[in-house]
Structure formats: structure tokens, C-alpha cells
């Protein structure tokens, strides 16, 4: 990794250390204050053009930011990802492009309904009514909808919160629409947008793997059982060491020449197991929010549930076989 990247990595790590209280974020959400801090550091609008108050960073820098922040708070990393990898490409070149200014400077809360389970949404001359189910970022003022077209809807909305399993820093719930929607694009760009996001998603996953694992390595270095450190027990330290191998290989591949498809796939195939075992290594303490490790397990399975299903695996298989497959 280049010197400048290492400096960025350290800067982000230091910022997290000082400013992100991950436990507070888990229980109280990402406050406006945190969002503004992220913006003032240039992390929030990492890839957004300078003319819209973004930092216009390259992909590697963006991924470094996501990874480092996800080590501390996957929720915050996900918020940055939603703006840069989902919202930004959705509004790019459209009439809503100018909203990026407020979004990148932390004044406007945006979301993208990529889960996209609209419940009887009716469209009448650009006017949408009905309920959007399970929107990650349901307290946003601008939400991108991937329906047949790509649309933007404007709030403020009435929304109802759900208890959410993962990424608890971000509001999650249903939105009742009674508003004007603007069609931004005549085709649904969800597919291509998600495809371009495998790198950034892998960076978040890698950060989560790294964060969970580091907690387990730290804990097993100081905690004793039966008169020995936990790390002195081979089944524990061997397993954590093997996970660190996976983490390290993934990182080298992500910032190296590997196909992001493949990196994402291996990250998704390892993340839950690593997070789960990192919880286990903490014994009973791992089960409590206070130790900051169980959130990685929750966030990991939510990430898989949202971003990695049958469709992604079909795409992966077709990528590997270099042809369209008629699955049975």
C-alpha cells in the first residue's frame, strides 16, 4: 500500500477513536453531530465531486475510509456507502444531482430503498401513494426508489421505526407516501449500481471482519481461564489466526488486482463465521452489547441477507462460466 494510503488509514482510525462512540451509535443512532463531523472530515462525501462539497477521492481511498470506519461502526460505514455508492450514482446526471451538495455536507439525510418491498405503491402522474416497507434510512429526506424507473421521493416523511437486527445506527422502518415523486431515469439502474458496489461493500465487510477479529484477539490475549490465557488454548488461537489469514488475503486482494466479484464472494462466505466465532471467544461477555462484538455478528448476517442471495450467486456462477446459465 502506498504511503499516502497509509496516512489516510491512520487519519481515519484516529478519527474513529476520538469521535465515534460505537456503543452510543448502536443505541442512539447516528446523530446529526456525527454526520456533520463525517462531512467536515470529507469522509461523508468521499467520492462526490468537489463542486458538490465532496472530497472527490479515488476508489482506493474511499474503500480505506469504509474499511476503517466499519472496524469501529459498520452503521456509519453503511451510511457513507449509501450516499456514495447508491445515492450518488442514482442522481448523477439527473435533475436531483444538486441535492448532493447538502448530502455531502451532512445537511440532507438521504437513503436508497434497495430492499425495495413496496407495498401496493400506486403511481398517479408522478404522485406516489402507499407504503415503502423496510427502508434502511427511513428518517431520510430524500429517498431513491428503484422501481421500474429510478425515482426520487422527497420528504420529510412520516415513518414508523422497527427494531432492527443490524446496522442499528441507521433508522429502519416503513414510510407512508403521500408526496410527489420525480422520475430521474427511465430505467432501473439498480443492477449496474449494485455491481459497481462490490468493492466498497467488500471494504465494509473487511472492516467488520477485522473489527470483530481484533476484539477477539485482544480479549483472548488478556483473559484467563483455568490459569492460562485464552490464546494459550490452541483451538482458540489457531482458529483466530486462520481467520486473520483470510482477512489479510482478502485485504491484499481488495486493494490489489483481484476481481471485486470474487473478493466480495469470499468476504460474504467468511464474514458470518468470523463474527460468530469472535463472539464465542468472549464467552458470556460476547453476548452483551457492552463488549461491542455481538454487533458485528448481527450486522454480518444482515449484510448477507440484503446483499448476497440466490441472484448474486447466479451472477457469480455466470461470471465464472463466462456464459448465461439456464439454471434448473
Amino acid at each position, binding site marked *: 500500500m502506498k504511503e499516502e494510503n497509509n496516512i489516510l488509514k491512520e487519519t481515519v482510525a484516529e478519527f474513529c477513536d476520538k469521535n465515534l462512540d460505537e456503543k452510543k451509535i448502536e*443505541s442512539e443512532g447516528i446523530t446529526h453531530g456525527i454526520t456533520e463531523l463525517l462531512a467536515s472530515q470529507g469522509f461523508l462525501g468521499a467520492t462526490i465531486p468537489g463542486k458538490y462539497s465532496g472530497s472527490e477521492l479515488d476508489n482506493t481511498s474511499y474503500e480505506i475510509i469504509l474499511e476503517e470506519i466499519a472496524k469501529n461502526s459498520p452503521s456509519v460505514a453503511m451510511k457513507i456507502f449509501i450516499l456514495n455508492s447508491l445515492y450518488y450514482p442514482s442522481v448523477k446526471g439527473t435533475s436531483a444531482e444538486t441535492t448532493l451538495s447538502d448530502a455531502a455536507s451532512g445537511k440532507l439525510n438521504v437513503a436508497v430503498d434497495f*430492499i425495495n*418491498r413496496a407495498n401496493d405503491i400506486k403511481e398517479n402522474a408522478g404522485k406516489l401513494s402507499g407504503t415503502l416497507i*423496510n427502508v434502511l434510512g427511513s428518517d431520510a429526506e430524500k429517498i431513491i426508489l428503484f422501481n421500474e424507473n429510478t425515482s426520487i421521493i422527497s420528504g420529510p416523511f412520516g415513518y414508523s421505526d422497527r*427494531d*432492527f*437486527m*443490524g446496522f442499528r445506527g441507521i433508522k*429502519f422502518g416503513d414510510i407512508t407516501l403521500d408526496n410527489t415523486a420525480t422520475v430521474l431515469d427511465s430505467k432501473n439502474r439498480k443492477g449496474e449500481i449494485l455491481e459497481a458496489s462490490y468493492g466498497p461493500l467488500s471494504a465494509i465487510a473487511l472492516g467488520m471482519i477485522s473489527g470483530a477479529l481484533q476484539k477477539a484477539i485482544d480479549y483472548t490475549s488478556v483473559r*484467563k*481461564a*483455568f*490459569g492460562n490465557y485464552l490464546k494459550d*488454548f490452541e*483451538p*482458540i488461537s489457531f482458529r483466530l489466526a486462520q481467520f486473520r489469514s483470510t482477512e489479510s488475503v482478502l485485504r491484499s486482494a481488495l486493494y490489489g488486482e483481484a476481481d471485486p466479484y470474487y473478493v466480495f464472494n469470499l468476504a460474504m462466505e467468511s464474514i*458470518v463465521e468470523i463474527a*460468530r466465532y469472535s*463472539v*464465542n471467544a468472549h*464467552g*458470556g461477555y*460476547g*453476548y*452483551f*452489547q*457492552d463488549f461491542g462484538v*455481538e454487533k458485528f*455478528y*448481527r450486522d454480518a*448476517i*444482515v449484510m*448477507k*441477507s*440484503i446483499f*448476497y*442471495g*440466490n441472484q448474486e*450467486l447466479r451472477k457469480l456462477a455466470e461470471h465464472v462460466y463466462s456464459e448465461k446459465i439456464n*439454471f*434448473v
Partner: protein
Amino acid sequence: MFEEYDEYRNKIREFALKEFTEEMAAEYDRKEEYPDELRKKSLSLGIIDMQNPAKVMIAIEELCRVDAGLGIAVTTPYFGSEVIMLFGNDRQKEILQDVYKGKYILGLAVTEPSGGSDVAGLKTTAMKQGNKYILNGSKMFITNGAIADYLVVLARTSEDPNPHHGLSTFLVNTKSKGFNANKLVDKLGVRATNTAELQFNNIELNEDDLIGEEGKGFYYIMMFFNISRIYVAAQSLGIAIGALDRIKSYIKENDIKDEDSMFRLSDVGTHIEATRQMTYNAASYLFEFKPKPELTSMAKAYGSETAVYAAESAMEMLGDKSLYEDVQRIFRNAKIMEIWEGTSEIEKLVIARYILKGE
């Protein structure tokens, strides 16, 4: 030996389906509170029969299948009762009867902040002064810790070079002076159960608070764990079947046909069948007083992995739909199975030791 209980099993299943509504399960999960009215209702309906371990096991399985948080909450007020049943004096057994009647809630306090699975290394003391024992120390992760009326407490009563010696069990009234319980919150799962950290500050215990003989506590507790582990296996089995129930409904309701889902379904089902066979086989030895601890440990270790595997599979197969209440709650509940009543790490060492002993 378990087939005769089919009718009882159906009764439990009906109770769970009727009482453990999604609203109630979600509410207690959110509030992180103990559902005391469910405990009373289950008693009044005769759901719990602590005299018959086979029935206890079936109840645990069927209740946890619907919701493990509520299921464990309903079956856990008796936690530790086997110690009293087997070794307690008359007064203690009377208290136990009151537990069974619903008057009191019981708990077991073994684990310590520094200890985890290392029972013999515990630091709580109950040193004799005259005809009293003075209890000092602290306990960690104690189920029912902040709601129990009585606790079975393991403490050191004498220094002995062999750390397994010199431990004793007591029945402690939580209204005693010097008792303090601090409810632990923000658990990942089984949030309808109560978990607490306890402090004992010079609690005075009488001689008849001692359960069984002084110095034999370690062995009593190990014997108890040999029994309670099979119940954890049953919890795991119930959770895994519950996850499979959700996967099946999802497949049927959405007319899922892809082969990847079929394979995952098959793997989950096979793991459950293996867990079921191992659990009931181990239980049949245990409940006929011919325990084979290695079989119990295998059932517990394998079963807890199965519960987690089934729950994670449900999450992944349902995709974003899993984020709705019930599946994600199953996922959060399952994880504790690998941790309590002896982590899988401990089980595996026990199993290895037995395998090497065998011919």
C-alpha cells in the same frame, strides 16, 4: 421411551402456539423483561412437570420451537432444582415445592466474573464462623439472578490443594442482607430471560442452608450440569426446528424451487435429525440413571451448532425478509446455546477424554 409422550407433546405445542404470539414474543424481546404472567399460566395449565425429566425435555423443545426467549423464560424458574431434589434437606425440599407451585422462582449461581467455564477456580467463599457460614463474592451471568427468590449458590467452604474439593452448595434467600443483584441488559438474544450479576456481602447462612454435604459442591454441580446439558440440547433442537419451520413456510409460500435452497433445506434437516437422535439417545441413558456424559456432551455441542446453523440458514435463505421480527429473533436467540452450560470448547475436551478412554 419418548413415544408415549406424543399427546403431552401436542399439548405443549398447542400451548406455545396459542400463548407465544408474535406480539408477545416481540414485546418481551424489545422490553428485555421477564414474562411472569406466562410462568403462572404455564403452571396453572400443568405444562411443567419437574418430576418427569422426559416431559421437561419435550416441553423445552416444543416451547423453544415457537420462541426460545419465552420458552426458556417459562421453563427456567426451576433452574437448579435437581440439586435440591437430589441432595437437599426437608426444609429446602419444601421451598422447592413452593417453586413448583409458582410461589417462588429459583436460580443457580455458579459462574463468576473471572471464571467462565472454570468452575473449580471460583473465588466466592462461605467460610464457617461458629454455626454460620459467611458468604462473600460475586457471580456473573446468573439466569433469574434479579428475579429469583432463592438461589442455589456454589461457594468455597475450605481451602484445599485440590481445587475440586472444598466447594459446597447453599440455598440462599435473595432477601438476605448483603445480597445485591444487578440486572444485565442489552443481551443479543433470549431477552425475555433475566440475567444478572450478583454480589454477596457478608451474607449470613445457617447450617441448614447448606445443601447436602460440605465439600461436595463441585460434584453436585457437575452432576447437575450432566442433567441440564441435555436440556440445553433440547433448547437447541427446538430452536433449530423452529428455524426449519420458518424456512419451510417461506419456501412454500413463495413457491421457491431453486436447487440451492433445496440443498440448504436438506442440510438443515439432516443436522436436525442428527441432533434429535443424539439428544434422545443421550437422554434415554440419563433418565434411566445410566448416564453417558460423553453422549450428553456430544448432543449439547452438536445441537448448539445445529441451532446456530439452522438460524443463520433461515436468515440467509429468507434474505431481506428475514429482517422481520421472528426469524431475526431466532437468530439472536440461537447464539447463546454455544455459550451457556459449558461452552462448546469445554464439551469437546470432555468428549475427547471419553473417546480416548473407550476401547
